[in-house]
């Protein structure tokens, strides 16, 4: 057993198993498309069905988990001592894949909960105190979410008296949708319910946080799409506007909090919240347009949603894997301790740069594409001229543009502080280039990011099947003269391939021009640090300093506590040492969650005093009192 562990048999076996099963399910779902399996049991039947949506998600999950498995074939070697990691992650991925193909309520709930359980076990894998608290918070929130979803399903069952999804089409009223969507958005980490996410994602091992952040949160999107576009009885369009606004708010707040973080993984976790918010905006517009019957707008928004799911999955998983490598080779995740990594880890830094550009929506990469589609659908919803929608979508545009700029700032901070400049501590000094397999695991999604960004027509035309399944229409995706029709008005065009070609061409021209007309003389020299000691890496700008000015402007979002401690009795102007501490607290956590917990504790204390007294006389008193109470109720109320 032990020598098996040390050889890392488990690691190889289960990662390969993951890859194989992912491939198997992909093939299965392609070949058994639109067919249904029912696994008979004595009491409940487990039924599975392959439709376009589930096919899309199966392929998405399997591909991302394949990259991550490739990555963790090498990366996971430091976890060989406790190989349960690989078993759990395999089961985790498996349950997610089965979740999306399940076609009845009980199966869905069972695999949903299995997914939560395994991810929880992975979150507490490290076994440290913080992982415990994070895991508990995560599991509690997701349990609440599951209960809400269960409530929704139960109400659906009562409405249709059937467990199978086939009968749920158009059955869900506003109550059911509200319950289920609240439950799902807890899993997605949308703003009021996001508290678990920034704790749970960082403590897990990097490959797991990659899966959780790149794939698992999208299961919630799957559920919401299922409810809103398949089960919904199309009653209330205002729900769409609510989703739009909540999404926009959590996009903005998420990225604002991300900017304040020191921990790389925490920053990425908050950025996950932002991206989920963007996806929610798309869903909201699409649902609203669905009800209000603006078809082409609905298709566009849906395209934005699906595209963003894919893009976010790819770039976020690659970024999390990269952060895992940084953690592995420098033994710290704190940006303020890093710096100058791109000389030590050259190729990683290139891939990380592309990931960062893609997730902060820089043209011509894929992140920009989906965000552009979202902008277009927002403009389209302004064109609809519906009174509420116009104003809410203007607000949404404002929030989204602010979030976009803030994302640029946050990820510049991430990349600049981590990879550029001088190494700030010894950890960064002794960093080494990662193993080739790990880099391959990251390289594939990064290349996909570029591919989708540059030539998206392939994926758009395949996404059209999903869009058709959900909304009954498609979006034209013709490379050079695609004019998107919004409410019978031909609207704007962004031709990625053209832009990419032009970009490279101009870059080439500029490069050649400078090559020919400028001197090649080059001198390498120390950076000038105003005559101070050039070697001093403390002279650089710190991550906290980078974001502080923006945080000062938007200080109302953070309830941040900052203080500067000077040493006493030193010369007034030349202080040898001064300590600056700043902590940023989540406003929701500070003003909603913690007080609620306090109230619960207080109530239960009162109850405990009253109900569970050790005194036997009081207990007997309760006994007889309840007897008398029953009599009184019986005599004076019922009769």
């Amino acid at each position: 057993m032990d020598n098996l562990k040390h050889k890392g048999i488990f690691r190889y076996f289960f990662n390969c198993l993951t890859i194989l099963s992912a491939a198997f399910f992909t093939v299965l779902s392609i070949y058994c498309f639109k067919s249904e399996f029912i696994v008979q049991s004595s009491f409940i039947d487990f039924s599975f069905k392959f439709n376009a949506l589930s096919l899309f998600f199966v392929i998405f999950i399997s591909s991302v988990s394949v990259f991550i498995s490739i990555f963790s074939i090498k990366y996971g070697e430091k976890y060989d001592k406790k190989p349960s990691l690989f078993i759990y992650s395999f089961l985790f991925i498996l349950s997610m894949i089965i979740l999306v193909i399940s076609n009845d309520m009980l199966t869905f709930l069972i695999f949903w909960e299995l997914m939560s359980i395994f991810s929880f076990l992975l979150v507490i894998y490290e076994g440290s105190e913080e992982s415990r608290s994070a895991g508990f918070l995560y599991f509690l929130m997701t349990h609440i979410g599951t209960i809400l979803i269960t409530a929704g399903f139960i109400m659906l069952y009562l409405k249709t008296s059937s467990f199978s999804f086939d009968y749920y089409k158009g059955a869900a009223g506003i109550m059911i949708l509200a319950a289920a969507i609240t439950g799902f958005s807890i899993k997605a980490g949308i703003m009021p319910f996001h508290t678990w996410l920034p704790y749970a994602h960082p403590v897990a091992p990097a490959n797991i946080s990659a899966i959780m952040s790149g794939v698992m949160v999208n299961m919630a999107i799957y559920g919401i799409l299922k409810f809103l576009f398949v089960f919904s009885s199309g009653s209330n369009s205002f729900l769409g506007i609510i989703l739009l606004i909540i999404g926009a708010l959590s996009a903005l707040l998420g990225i604002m909090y991300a900017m304040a973080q020191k921990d790389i993984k925490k920053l990425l976790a908050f950025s996950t919240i932002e991206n989920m918010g963007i996806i929610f905006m798309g869903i909201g517009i699409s649902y609203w347009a669905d009800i209000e019957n603006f078809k082409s707008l609905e298709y566009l928004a849906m395209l934005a949603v699906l595209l963003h799911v894919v893009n976010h999955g790819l770039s976020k998983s690659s970024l999390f894997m990269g952060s895992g490598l940084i953690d592995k080779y420098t033994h710290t995740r704190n940006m303020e301790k890093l710096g100058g990594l791109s000389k030590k880890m050259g190729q990683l830094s290139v891939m990380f740069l592309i990931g960062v550009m893609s997730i902060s929506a820089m043209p011509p990469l894929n992140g920009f594409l989906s965000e552009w589609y979202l902008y277009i659908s927002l403009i389209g919803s302004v064109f609809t001229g519906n009174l509420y929608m116009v104003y809410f979508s203007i607000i949404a545009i404002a929030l989204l543009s602010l979030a976009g700029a803030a994302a640029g700032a946050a990820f510049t901070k991430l990349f600049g502080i981590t990879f550029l400049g001088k190494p700030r501590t010894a950890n960064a000094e002794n960093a080494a280039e990662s193993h080739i397999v790990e880099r391959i695991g990251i390289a594939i999604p990064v290349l996909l990011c570029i591919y989708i960004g540059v030539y998206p027509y392939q994926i758009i035309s395949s996404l059209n099947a999903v869009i058709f399944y959900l909304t009954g229409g498609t979006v034209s995706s013709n490379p050079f003269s695609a004019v998107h029709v919004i409410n019978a008005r031909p609207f704007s065009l962004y031709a990625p391939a053209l832009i990419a070609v032009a970009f490279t061409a101009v870059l080439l021209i500029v490069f050649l021009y400078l090559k020919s007309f400028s001197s090649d003389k080059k001198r390498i020299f120390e950076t000038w640090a105003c005559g101070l000691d050039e070697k001093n890496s403390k002279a650089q700008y710190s991550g906290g300093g980078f974001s502080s000015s923006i945080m000062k402007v938007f200080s109302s979002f953070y309830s941040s506590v900052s203080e500067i401690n000077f040493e006493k009795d030193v010369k007034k102007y030349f202080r040898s040492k001064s300590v600056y501490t700043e902590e940023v607290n989540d406003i929701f956590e500070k003003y909603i969650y913690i007080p609620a917990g306090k109230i619960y504790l207080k109530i239960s204390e009162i109850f405990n005093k009253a109900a569970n007294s050790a005194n036997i006389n009081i207990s007997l008193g309760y006994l007889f009192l309840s007897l008398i109470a029953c009599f009184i109720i019986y005599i004076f109320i019922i009769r």
Partner: protein
Amino acid sequence: MIMEKIAELFIILILVSVVLNVSSPFIKFAIKLYSFQSLMLAFYILMGAVHFNSINLYGSFAITVIFKVVLIPYFLFKTLKKVKMDKEIDMYIGIPEAVVFAGSLTLLSNLIAQKIIKTGITFGSFVFTISLATFLIGAMLMITRKTLFSQIIGFLTIDNAIFLAANSITHGMPLLVELGVLFDLFVSILILSILILNLRRNVAV
């Protein structure tokens, strides 16, 4: 007719004994009262037996006397000797209030009995009132007194009340059942006294 009057006398005596029990802080006296009360119950059952001339009731008279009048008080006295305490000091409410409370409970039970009993079985209603009152007062004993003994006494009083009801509204439970009930009661008293001893050994009650 005269028999019923005598029976009512016995019943009243049962209630009186319970009220006396409420009014006295002494445990020995309480146990004696209990045995007296059980005797009254037994006599009441005897009256019934003579009145209806049923073997069943004769049998239940016998076992009542054996278990309730003799055995259980005997064991309680033995335990009491072992733990050496006769006056109970602590109760939650003072004796006068307790007595008043007992009276009001009697009124309440009368009200309930009037509500519940169908008009016509007046005899039944009277006994039912008394038994309900005994029941509630026994409960009050258990609630208001801290000492373990008086809890046992209260429990036994409740049991008597139920027996009274059983023998009044019906003509006694089937003998088999009654035997089982009394045996269980006896064993539970044994166990409780064992517990008292143990608690005495471990804790200062």
